[in-house]
């Protein structure tokens, strides 16, 4: 079920404050965050966020098209590393 419109989009308070402060001062710096659940607002456009994926911080440059998505959608949490080779260990199990 979608989120109630009454509540408005969810953004971590701390993150929103930082973006607003940077917009006022015109400062452009990467913002490191773990708040993958925060919705990308129009104010975020042009900023670069370092979004944690559980292991590392992935740089996400926000464009207009990304508004309405959440930061985590752009910081993949899984890496596919092709199907495994038969190592000594797996062979000896048979």
């Amino acid at each position, binding site marked *: 079920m979608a989120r109630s419109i009454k509540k408005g989009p969810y953004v971590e308070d701390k993150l929103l404050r930082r973006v607003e402060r940077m917009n006022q001062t015109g400062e452009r710096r990467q913002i490191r965050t773990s708040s993958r659940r925060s919705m990308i607002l129009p104010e975020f456009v042009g900023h670069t966020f370092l979004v944690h994926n559980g292991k590392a911080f992935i740089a996400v440059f926000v464009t207009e*098209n990304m508004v309405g998505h959440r930061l985590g959608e*752009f910081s*993949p949490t899984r890496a596919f590393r*092709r*199907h495994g*080779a038969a190592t000594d260990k797996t062979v000896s199990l048979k």
Partner: protein
Amino acid sequence: MPRVLGIEIPGKKRLEYALRYIYGIGPARGRAIVAKAGIDPATKADDLTGEQITQLAAILQQDYRIEGDLRREVSQNIRRLMSVASYRGMRHRRGLPVRGQRTKTNARTRKGPRRTVGAVRGKAARAAAKTGA
């Protein structure tokens, strides 16, 4: 068979069902359109007067995005997801399910026919597979 909007040729069925042959019209919209046009839903599509057909065409064009336009909108939305490199876009690109379904088994609709992926054996074979891919 009558034609609505040039291309759609719904069959010998009650109008509310015949309209569903149009891409973008389902049960709910079929009913809504018939009600709006003030036509008895039990009328067979064949029995429509020319006047009624033009009326339906007008409603369809004004209030609904159907057929080509709708298909274009859908593929544009998918293209947008892919271009911003979102998780959903990546899933579309790889042809895997987009909405969090399991892929250990099933997901054949998205993945297509089964393709067995073998293990890459030995150092030489692994190097070959790397350069090949």
